[in-house]
């Protein structure tokens, strides 16, 4: 597994650039990932999505379904893609430090 260093912090990541451990997440991680996910500036809307994904994951141990993410944040899927060009899974979940999505993807 690769280890990346950014702003004095170290992060253990897999080939797809997902954090190996949710506990390793810090705000610096978001800064580190954003460019590779096609994001220039982290806005309040980005933060809202990241915060909700983290809360949901801590509470439920899984990532929320897309429908629930939309319902709670109020962002339609189209808006989520405007915020995170590679989508809620590869984009938002990666930045929030959640484990890599699995299954028949």
């Amino acid at each position: 597994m690769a280890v990346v260093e950014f702003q004095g912090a170290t992060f253990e990541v897999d080939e797809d650039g997902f954090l190996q451990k949710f506990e390793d997440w810090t705000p610096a991680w978001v800064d580190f990932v954003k460019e590779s996910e096609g994001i220039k500036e982290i806005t309040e809307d980005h933060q809202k999505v990241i915060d909700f994904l983290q809360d949901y994951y801590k509470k439920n141990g899984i990532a929320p379904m897309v429908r629930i993410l939309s319902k709670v944040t109020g962002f339609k899927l189209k808006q989520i893609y405007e915020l995170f060009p590679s989508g809620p899974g590869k984009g938002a979940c990666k930045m929030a430090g959640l484990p890599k999505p699995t299954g028949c993807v």
Partner: protein
Amino acid sequence: MAKHKTPLLDQLESGPWPSFVSDIKQEAAARAKNEKGVQYQVAVDCPDDLLGVLEMSFTDGETHWKHGGIVGVFGYGGGVIGRYCDQPQMFPGVAHFHTVRVAQPNGKWYSTEFLRSLMDIWDLRGSGLTNLHGATGDIVLLGTSTPQLEEIFWELTHNLNVDLGGSGSNLRTPASCMGMSRCQYACYDAQELCYNLTQEYQDELHRPAFPYKFKFKFDGCPNGCVAAIARSDLGFLGTFKDPIKINQEAVAAYVGGEIAPNAGAHAGRDWGKFDIQKEVVDLCPSKCISYEGGKLIMDHKECVRCMHCINTMPQALRIGDDRGVSIFCGAKAPILDGPQMGSLLVPFVEVNKDDDYQAIKDIVEAVWDWWMEEGKNRERIGETMKRLGFAALAEAAGVPIDARQVQEPRHNPYIFWKAEDVEGGWERDLAEFRKRHQR
């Protein structure tokens, strides 16, 4: 000289069937030679390393691909299946080996010009290996690296005017049989309807928004040449309402042996002289055909449009003129709660191009609205249907309940009623009951 020794795979070069091993070796040799001077963007020996890792799997009986993989292109949530080798030092050529799904034309008709252009892109930016086609229908480009994904996507969309296919919890790439392009059984233009719905629902295809995957397939008739009833969550099967058209002269020609039954499909063996009674009349599942005095007679009201008689005597029997589709819902593979084939949801709906297939789209969207709201995480619609009941699906789809939706009525008496359908509703006073019935 091959990079890895492959004694087990080499055995698969013998025998009459086209050998995938010989073909991969040929591609490996062509890349090594590089007669066109291509600036390969992934390892030149990628196909060699693929053979190497496959030989290793043959030796130890285990796969050597790591679990999962999340890669893609900006704007889409699917289309690329990421994959990494679990022995990247030994086989660096396939350290990244992602699969790109490319949207195919319906019926899979191609010009060599298109295929050559596609292969030019793939030679440069991929392994040179493909799958034509994936089971869902996509053109499958087999093996490339993450940095090449956006490059490939740019060239596909800008130079070839072609898009990615679907993957993930969304509408997957729809597929159809060859339909009217070269089949006299086609009851509607399966390719056109498939193309229209694919374009209409691009957003649902590229950006996963569903509880799980969802597939469309379009068969021109009940023969099911694209297996819609087994391999699509919503399957569209062509059918017709009016009588089968009978050409008695051609019937006589079949009986007289001038035309081979089943268009000669059984010519490889001597089955004796064609016997219309034995091979058509007696095999009709609804026993609605008779052959008397040299004439074939059919009671079309009893006909279930199984296609057997038409398949057997295609020059004598033709589909009717009042045509449409039946819609089947819920087919899926075994995981989680067992395999399902499609259940008849809509017995007949017209395929009307003039209003842009609105009747069909209304049903599709009503079904999606219901499943997107009610479906659990990773629950196929066939399972939602089992959990909440067929009646809930039919009601959501706006489809009337019809005897044709069941093979047989239920045999258990656990029948639910809606409160409004029961006189007096569910609110009852026990004291009132006790007035008539002592404890």
